[in-house]
């Protein structure tokens, strides 16, 4: 099952600050919802254990996350892969980062997720709502925390 997401967030912080935040594995990990624990592997990789409850699939999924900052500081790519209970989720996401010139920064992001195993059986609408929730919460947290550290 393949799902596609996209959206836009305006973060009330300058581009350099946003870039520094989203380039830091520990910061990004702290914005994901329902995290049980996170291990930062190196400057661009972390592993995170997340609580999942989608229909009958309940438990923890472990994800490997790789950040791939693009030269120039205008785009951040990210791959997330992992799963649990025989299910696999592969997500490739990317955000274009634009300085709005007013002290705020726009993130134009897209994400493509492919899901396999029991989690895919549950059906698009349930999964879709869950994925939307995870993504929107993550960006809302980014927005809140970058803003808060200003």
């Amino acid at each position, binding site marked *: *099952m393949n799902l596609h997401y996209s959206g836009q967030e305006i973060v009330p912080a300058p581009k350099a600050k946003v870039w520094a935040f989203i380039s830091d594995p520990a910061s990004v990990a702290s914005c994901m919802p329902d995290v049980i624990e996170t291990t930062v592997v190196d400057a661009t990789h972390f592993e995170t254990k997340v609580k999942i409850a989608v229909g009958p699939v309940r438990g923890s999924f472990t994800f490997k996350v790789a950040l791939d900052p693009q030269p120039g500081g205008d785009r951040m790519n990210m791959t997330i892969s992992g799963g649990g209970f025989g299910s696999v989720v592969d997500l490739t996401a990317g955000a274009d980062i634009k300085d709005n010139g007013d002290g705020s920064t726009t993130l134009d992001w897209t994400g493509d997720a*492919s899901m396999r195993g029991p989690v895919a059986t549950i059906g698009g609408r349930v999964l879709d709502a869950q994925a939307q929730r995870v993504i929107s919460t993550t960006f809302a947290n980014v927005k809140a925390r970058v803003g808060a550290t200003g």
Partner: protein
Amino acid sequence: MTTTDKPRHAIGLSMKRKEDPRFIRGRGRYVDDIVLPNMLHLALVHSPYPHARIKNIDSTAALAVPGVKAVLTGKDLEAAGLAWIPTFHGYDKQMVLAVGKVLYQYQEVAGVVAETREAAHDGAELVEVDYEPLDPVVDPFEARKDTIILRDDRENKTNHIYHWEVGAREETDKALAASDVHIKERIYFQRCHPAPLEPCGGIADMNPATGRLTIYMTSQAPHAHRTVVSLVTGIPEDKIHIISPDIGGGFGNKVPVYPGYVVAAVASVVLKVPVKWIETRTENLTTTGFARDYHMDVEIGADKDGKVTALKVGTVADHGAFDAAADPTKYPAGLFGIVTGSYDFPHAFTELDAYFTNKAPGGVAYRCSFRVTEASYAIERGMDLLAGRLGMDAVELRRRNFVGKDQFPYRSQLGFVYDSGDYHATLDKALEAIGYDTLRKEQAECRARGELMGIGISTFTEVVGAGPSKHFDIMGIKMFDSAEIRIHPTGSGIVRAGTRHQGQGHETTWAQIVAEELGLDPQNLIVEEGDTDTAPYGLGTYASRSTPVAGGALALASRKIREKARKIAAHVLEVAEDDVEWENYAFTVKGVPGKTITMKEVAFAAYTNPVPGTEPGLEATFYYDPPNMTFPNGAYIAVVSVDPETGETKVKRFVAVDDCGVVINPMIVEGQIHGGLTEGYAIAFMQEIRYDEGGNHMNTNFTEYLVPTAVETPVWETGSTVTPSPHHPIGAKGVGESPNVGSPAAFVNAVMDALSPLGITHLDMPLTREKVWRAIRDAKAAKAATA
């Protein structure tokens, strides 16, 4: 339900099932009830990817789970020469645990053996498999383009498995071209699953002291499995003991050999203790043998009076990742040649191409004699489409084209010789039972009120009882079957057969056959099946073959006993053997009324007063090689109403009149028909194994793959006609599969008849509310657009 006019001793009686007291009281003994000393448990690791290379398997974390004893991978099996095993008919091979790459989602990748089932499953969760995902091919029509080759292990680099055809192509094409009327429709019989309530499982117990491997398994064919295990492993066949205990439903699902059995056996050999493997529901639905998945292009030609002129069916079959279809070796598309059905086609041709896809392998004979269900559905839907095109009543079209009762034995254009039947009489009985003419009037009134009511007919003919050894074998083993009967001194006895029941009631019906032949009490004949150390060699129970084949063996073994008993009777009665005759279930002396001896008395004499110079005792074995198949048939009529606002179909009535030849136990036959109709109903309205475009299996449990309960199940009305099979020792034809074979077309024909005022002519199963609602909505929109 009637059988024959002559009063019988045991055959034709609705005896209560001898096996039921233990099932009803929870005293059955299924594989998972068996607990052996020091037994370990096996759990399997499954691939989440439908197509991927395996880069690495890391068992470290799994082995650290308390209680985990071992983790087995494909590489371990490779060392034992068991990474691959032959498929059912031996034309392909299948992976036991994946080596190199996985070819379908949920494919078995590793096995974890532990002290408890829970620890084994916990360990399986922690086996880390590093996959490199590959693009999957899930559509057989895409597979046939050969853009992505799935099986790089095979010599031929193509996804095409085989082409099969039978009949006269040119003559059929010519006849179709010359026909006044012609229909062509792609009819898909969806992938479905037998889904027995008890999933598959086994215990392998290699005894290091004796060198003997005992396997308790959910097997519909224990002897065949013993031979296969011996051929594949090299273990001498005398060192293999298969025990198939009580089985909670098989329906063809428990015919193939699955990886769990093999891994459990290897684990037992390695660890020198018994190892149990019990499947989960999800494993059963996602990895074990599915059924159907035939895309059939059906063409029928007819003259303007509705007399059929030709039939052509071209099929694309989706076999999944391995060619593991359960068909006799010489019949890659099973008995699909029965697709001419009950009709006298002057010309016919059918061809089939099978393809690999990234889906679970299978193609088992789900309550069906090897692709007979697909064939029956194709022809019965086709006849209704033709009736619609001709503007002719579906009953009248069938009547005009039936094979007449005087035409039997009837040789069809596709090569079968039908044994017997009276299709007109069977249909007439069903029409009378349902009140057909009145129903058509009622339907006209409903239509006038804008209501959607439909009547669907299916007048099917099956071919079952594989089979004559000159045609039928599985991996070279001929498809005869066997019976062994021992009569004890006091007139009771033990009956053993090479078949293995899974709910069919053999413990009762086999006793009835022997009791009928010998004049004994069926209550005192115990029936034993499923233990290869004691039962005579047989090919097992599936494809409606038990009564046509083993039933014949039982009757003929009984007659061997009767012949010996006649000698003993003559000896006891002190008359010449020629003066003794078998009359009213006892031996009498010709012309001397009252001078009789019962079989029970003869049995006692066989051990206490044997005939001098002859062998004492009273027992016999018979291996029966049937001269032909049998051809059960029936007329089914469904009446439905469809709610135009919701698409919901209600089955208002369903009449099933079956001709299965001589009926052994009417109550059991009726039960078989009820069960099969309920499965047919589920297939028609609820069930489909679907994969999404990424190769994800979408029906992994009973919340996604629905099984009807008493709430959904319609009320079944049954009846019978009897035309005995002329070549079968007791005239029986087999019945277990008729309702599953014949009913889907009756349901679909009824719904299409209901929808016909909207211009809808065909929808593929399952006819879910959503599918029917969408079709109604689209049809109304199309009508509005042209108005």
